[in-house]
């Protein structure tokens, strides 16, 4: 038997696999395909205090080996999550990471405060969404503003605090260090890469918001590189993501330094993807005589 459990900055996960925020809602929609309790955790869709409408349509476009999205964090607000999704996830026996969004530092804090009385296992602070005009990536591009938001969130909770980083910066390790110094228990990366797609026939952008976030296998090499860089820059554990479709992809992220991984766009290709990745990691460990999945973390030989 392979030990599959990992500790992501105080969050005990039965295996290293969670879902990437925004690709899985809170899991109910996937319940015909996935037992949410079989995952290391479920990371819920980004939630704000009173809910947001999101962006105009079209909101997605397929690109080679990837996709662009500009959903814009459409969500019904934190109370909806508290009343509906969190009780459902807990009844199913899932570990819950809530992705926290805000237009201001105060809003991030207010969302966490609203969630504190409820059974949430960890928070993922979203300072990296490229599809909103305030908050998100606008806060995640400078070490100073990341430090500020993480510090305020840190004061609001003693639960594991994961900070999700944007790759759309010059040096992601500077942002990672700022998050760590301000009290983050873990960092997650990467959010999507800012991109665009154009329809040459109509001379129009394929997304209504013109630009959007690129995800899927196309971004995996960038994500691996950034996980590897950050793993040498900070000592807090890393939740790695970006184009993971298989157990082998996940193992590559762990070798690069990730303690846990998230499956995102692959859920769209294959609704069983997150569970398949758990099985794939276990299969890899069995095949290569790895007794404890933790042995893989940072075990890249170079």
């Amino acid at each position, binding site marked *: 038997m392979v030990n599959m459990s990992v500790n992501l900055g105080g969050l005990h996960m039965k295996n290293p696999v969670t879902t990437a925020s925004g690709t899985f809602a809170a899991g*109910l929609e996937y319940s*015909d395909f996935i037992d949410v309790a079989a995952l290391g955790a479920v990371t819920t869709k980004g939630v704000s205090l009173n809910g947001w409408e999101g962006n105009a349509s079209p909101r*997605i476009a397929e690109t080679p080996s990837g996709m662009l999205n500009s959903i814009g964090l459409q969500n019904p607000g934190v109370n909806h999550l508290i009343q509906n999704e969190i009780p459902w996830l807990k009844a199913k026996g899932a570990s819950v990471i809530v992705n926290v969004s805000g237009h201001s530092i105060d809003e991030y804090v207010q969302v966490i405060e609203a969630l504190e009385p409820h059974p949430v296992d960890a928070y993922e602070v979203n300072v990296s969404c490229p599809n909103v005009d305030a908050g998100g990536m606008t806060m995640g591009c400078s070490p100073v503003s990341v430090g500020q938001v993480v510090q305020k969130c840190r004061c609001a909770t003693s639960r594991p605090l994961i900070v999700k980083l944007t790759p759309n910066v010059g040096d992601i390790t500077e942002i990672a260090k700022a998050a760590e110094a301000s009290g983050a228990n873990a960092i997650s990366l990467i959010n999507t890469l800012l991109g665009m797609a154009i329809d040459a026939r109509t001379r129009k952008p394929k997304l209504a918001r013109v630009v959007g976030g690129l995800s899927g296998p196309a971004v995996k090499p960038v994500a691996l590189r950034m996980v590897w860089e950050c793993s040498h820059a900070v000592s807090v554990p890393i939740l790695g993501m970006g184009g993971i479709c298989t157990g082998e992809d996940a193992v590559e992220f762990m070798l690069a330094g990730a303690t846990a991984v998230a499956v995102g766009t692959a859920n769209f290709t294959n609704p069983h993807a997150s569970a398949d990745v758990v099985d794939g990691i276990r299969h890899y460990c069995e095949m290569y005589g790895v007794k404890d999945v933790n042995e893989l973390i940072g075990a890249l030989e170079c």
Partner: protein
Amino acid sequence: MSGLFDEMGEVKQNLQVGPNLYLLSMLAPKTASKILPGQFVHMQISTNPAHVLRRPFSIYAANPENGMIDILYQVVGSGTREMTFWQAGDKAPMISPIGHGWTLSDDIHKALLVGGGVGAAPLYMLCVALCKSGVQVDVALGAGSSNSLVCLDRYNELAMPKLRVLCATDDGSYGISGFCTSIAQDALQCAADSDAPYDYVATCGPEPMMKIVANLAHTANVRCEVSLERRMACGVGACLSCVVDTKDGKKRACVDGPVFDAQELLW
């Protein structure tokens, strides 16, 4: 959602039936027995990682007895182009049965179905169901030219006594010269003038066409349902890619639709 499953479909036939139009017949017994008129499947069209997204396809016909489903598809991009190379024996997984289909209520007595282009296909199962319930059904089909009216034969072959099929082509090569919206307008007017107005309109096709039909139905005070097409990622209601503006806020075309009451939409 509940009641969704992922079924491996097996291609039995994949024929070009018109300009850029293909008829795909697949063995997918579970889907064939569960799918309702207006619902769709979300199919993984390639194992090539270049295509990360599945493609939603309406079901043209389903036969629970032999387990076959038919999909009429138009080549619009690299994904559907790749599908044209599918041969008998090829396999593709599909999530099904997805979505809120056409409303088949007992209070429908006389229906008008308006299909533009490949929009004729998602209306076919509805037509069959309505005819079987004894509803009087008028069908208006539109296409660019006679060789694009690829669903016409199947509608005619139904040969139901209370079924009437009328056609319009842009070039006048079959039926009236013009758009199927003209047929719809005349039909609604005639029915209103007689003592037997329609009590249900269903339409599927290009969105500008559906808007005209919805407006005509609204003017005639007849309930109208439309089937919307949106770019989709998950197909199960999770990702919020396919949202539609409605009087009741944003709704998901995949699981809250694809069929909506036209009066509900802000479009």
